[in-house]
């Protein structure tokens, strides 16, 4: 082991409460199923761009290495392509574990563009029951801040132009569900049940 790694290890904080918290999440039970075979990183679509491989993330959750896990970009780069789930000998739905970890990262004040996108998306679902693809881009832009949005808009203007010219981005929201209030009641009740551990 190199000196640097040894030094890192000496300051690493282990938090067993973190491990328990992950286990309690809806997909937490799967973390226990992993046998560390390493199939998931070899199949992962974006492994090269990840700070920690999906296998390593599982290992570190079990070790209680809270900071390392929650600060990694790994869960944000999971595209839910299901390749790892398809090949995992234990049938672990790794993408679902990654979604739980995103939720947990946000709970701990860690932000990422992917989560900003997910939040804009979920807000639309709460508001209307269906998403408005045209409005998603705009609301996402507002969420990441005007400066970032202008930069993105300039950089991606040729993509946006293609979409607009071919009438692929509806300018007005399509109709939503008849009673979005009822849908919100359903979702709030579901959140309550999950909180009580009834998932």
């Amino acid at each position: 082991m190199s000196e640097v790694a040894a030094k890192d290890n000496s300051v690493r904080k282990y938090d067993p409460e973190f491990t328990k918290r992950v286990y309690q999440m809806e997909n937490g039970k799967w973390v226990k199923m992993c046998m560390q075979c390493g199939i998931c990183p070899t199949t992962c679509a974006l492994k090269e761009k990840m700070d920690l491989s999906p296998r390593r993330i599982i290992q570190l959750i079990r070790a209680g290495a809270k900071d390392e896990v929650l600060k990694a970009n790994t869960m944000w780069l999971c595209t839910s392509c299901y390749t790892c789930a398809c090949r995992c000998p234990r049938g672990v739905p790794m993408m679902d574990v990654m979604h739980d970890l995103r939720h947990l990262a946000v709970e701990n004040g860690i932000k990422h563009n992917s989560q900003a996108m997910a939040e804009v998306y979920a807000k639309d679902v709460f508001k209307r029951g269906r998403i408005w693809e045209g409005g998603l881009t705009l609301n996402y832009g507002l969420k990441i801040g005007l400066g970032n949005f202008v930069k993105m808009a300039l950089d991606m203007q040729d993509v946006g132009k293609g979409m607009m010219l071919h009438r692929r981005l509806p300018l007005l929201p399509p109709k939503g569900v008849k009673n979005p209030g009822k849908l919100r009641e359903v979702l709030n009740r579901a959140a309550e049940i999950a909180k009580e551990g009834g998932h």
Partner: protein
Amino acid sequence: MKITLYPGCASEGTAISYTQSALEVAKKLGLEVKEIEDWNCCGSTVTSSVIGQFAADVLAARNLALAEKMGEQDVVATCSSCYAVLGNVNKKFADDKFKANANDALSKDNLSYSGKLKVRMLLDVMYSDVGLETIKSKVVKPLTGLKVAGYVGCQTVRALREFDNCENPTFLDGIISALGAEPVQFSHKLKCCTGAMALSSPEITISTVYPIIKSAHEAGADVIVTPCPLCQMNLDAYQVKVNKNFNTQYKMPVLFFTQLMALAYGLDRKAAGLDYCIVSPNEALKNWM
């Protein structure tokens, strides 16, 4: 055959050409299609990270509860992501505790779901239920000489693994052949296009989409067809970025497989939704338009 259609949000926007062409093709094939009344967004794979897995599951399950009211026929999704989400939730209803809790939440909207329906993907219904012989029998303009890269993408065959082979899928190529076209083999047939990441990390999407288009091009494809709205959008709309970033000149049209069917069935340009294609398909498909 009767089916209950779950159109999904993309059917009204980015993938409008998919639903339109699918409905036209369904008419030709004698499929009786009814849309789920008052359906809501399936939540895709992104919502659970915001509202939690269980609430996201219940969100998707509301559609199944509504579908059950319409009869016992299969619920068919056009979008791969909707299929993945609805199908996975449907499986969870086999667990009594999950079912009781989900129905507890759904009761707030006077709904409940038994878990008895089947969730299917349109590609599977076309291949397994309609069948290649019937698909072939309706062809009036065989696509002879057209080389097609059937881009299956990731979730279609992998999310539920209930149809086709998740490592070596053949259903899409079978349909391409039945239409008289030639399916080409290319290395990136099953690679992920990065889906919804296109907006939050566009640079990753561009670098991921590039080898997909490249491999289809090198295999001699005239067009790419896909069964997934996000795959279609990323390959089609981001091609301009791929060309800029990698100094290439690809002009590879990207269509939904139902658009290709519509074309072979002699439906007009409008019914096939060809004007929604960002990379023009006019040159590649001129013999059949």
